């Protein structure tokens, strides 16, 4: 029990620290840690002293672990995994969109501007093709596409 509490505490501390750092990739890892912390918390909620597999006909029911928190944890893991992929997709899409360096380094502005200029012609052309409409099927949409796809899968 104490070990679980310590693990939750350490993971939460690390997770919160990373989430408060700049940069989407660090934030992603922060949420991975926070996800682990909450998963351990959920498992602990079912009691840590009963550990036998919760299968009927396989031993004493008093010794069996509570299956419900395990189901919770499985669901939570799937959600955390989806979120991790989404966050990494966002980081990637943003890097594609505005220039690689901006995601992680505040001093990467120079590089970002450089990339941005090289990308300019495409969106401009899209703009002149359809002056009345503010939407832009290519450009930003292209960079943003991967993550919702991943989303649908999870």
């Amino acid at each position, binding site marked *: 029990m104490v070990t679980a509490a310590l693990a939750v505490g350490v993971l939460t501390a690390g997770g919160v620290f990373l989430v408060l750092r700049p940069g989407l990739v660090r934030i992603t890892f922060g949420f991975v840690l926070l996800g682990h912390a909450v998963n351990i918390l*959920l498992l602990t909620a079912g009691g840590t002293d009963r550990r036998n597999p919760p299968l009927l006909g396989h031993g004493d029911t008093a010794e069996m672990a509570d299956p419900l928190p395990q189901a919770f944890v499985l669901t939570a893991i799937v959600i955390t995994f989806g979120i991790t992929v989404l966050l990494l997709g966002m980081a990637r899409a943003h890097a594609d969109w505005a220039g690689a360096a901006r995601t992680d380094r505040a001093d990467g502005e120079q590089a970002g501007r450089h990339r941005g200029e090289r990308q300019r012609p495409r969106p401009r052309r899209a703009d002149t093709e359809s002056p009345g*409409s503010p939407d832009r099927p290519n450009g930003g949409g292209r960079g943003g596409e991967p993550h919702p796809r991943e989303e649908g899968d999870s």
Partner: protein
Amino acid sequence: MISTALTLPVAVPLLAAGLLVLLPDSTGLRRWTAAVVSLGVLAFGVVLLVETADGTVVHQSVGGWPPGIAIVLAADTLTALMLCVSAVLVLASLAFAAGARDDREPLFLPLVLMLSAGVYGAFLTADLFNLFVFVEVMLVPSYALLTVVGGPDRWAAGRVYVTFSLLASTALLGGVGLLYGVMGTVNLGELAGAATRETTAALATGVVLLALAAKAAVVPLHGWLPRCYPATRPSVTLLFSGLLTKVGVYAIIRIYAVVFDGTGLGPVIMAAALVTMVVGVLGAVGQPDMRGILCFHMVSQIGYLLLALALFTERGLAAGVFFLVQYVLVKAALLACAGVVEHTHGTDRLEHLGGLSRSAPLLAGCFLVAAFSLAGMPPLSGFTAKFALLLAAAAQAEYLAVAVAALVSLLTLTSMVKIWGAVFWGTAPDGVPGGDAAGPRTPPDSAPDAPPDEPRRTAARTRARPALLAATVALAVPSLVLGLFAEPLLTAASTAASGLIDPTGYVEAVTR
């Protein structure tokens, strides 16, 4: 009979979203599917409203598992009302997105459907862990919507929004875990009154409520909302405004009513309510654009809902439910007005606009109705709601709350008059109403490193497309109707309120 269909509002939109991703790329097909599905949910909500009008609680144990194991869905009048108003809002934003051509993005409509499925699920579920799951189902598409079809500030806004929402979700899950550890169940029915009996359960539920308060943008956890909502497209702001924070508010109301029996946190909720009202309305003063102002008012109005919850009397809750329903539509109408202005003029910054009452009289009329309703002027729905709320507060001798609520209404009116004066009266800054396109481009504070293709601000000045105006009118008219003929909704709101005051029916239905 209808109880076996309670899964449909969740299952059908999710299924439709999945199919639309697989089916060939056709905007027309996606539009009609989304519209039909949302209309179906609206019809279902109306049937549910009729079914629950006498206070019965419709419930279903999914999969027919015995009580205690089954996932329970339940609907009372409050749920039915929320389903109806959410479906109306989804329909309006679908029309608006069609008018703005936002839904040509292949994933836009599937994402909207997924989001709405999560919202309906969160209203229907009677199980805290499922509430968490449905909140996630609702939020994950919203992350994608914010970043895929956002404006130029979307990355900065998206990062704040995603990070904050995920932290709140983690806290919500942690709270649910703690509650399970203490009580051994997460079924709302079995948790009924738990917080009044055991301090540990009250603490664990407190964590859940805190996480939900963050999702509902209650001060001091409100910072993300006014920063993120204006950064996306108007159609997406419209959708988010009526759904995301309202799910948080709904869940707070439900959990406080059932698990706390409406006692124990009154002073805390009252303090949060008053601070939220005041901070929201004052924050709006400093905003330079229509949507920024409206988003801060969103925070402010959450305070009124919490005030109703803090009172926890039948009259107060009835006023709160009435307020919630009409407010979703009023706020959406205002955001739709801002969206139309943005689409026709390329910006919604006050200093670049003027004279729209002459060039767009219908839009100006809609804005006037919705703005006066938001501020609480008779004979509009906002007046009925706020008047009932103030009477209920006065009946409990909460005179400070009455004073603050009245003052905040006045300040809201000032903000609305500010928008009216800057956007609809006077002349456009260029001298010609709706003048040339050079003026409003690229305000100085827009992200300096954003590529030059800023979709929000470079639209040519055209007349508003009919679908945009239709959505706006459709959202503004109910305010007038609900103001003049408030009786049916007030009756439904009282039924919902008595269900919250005495949740026995709900609890029995959920545990049976």
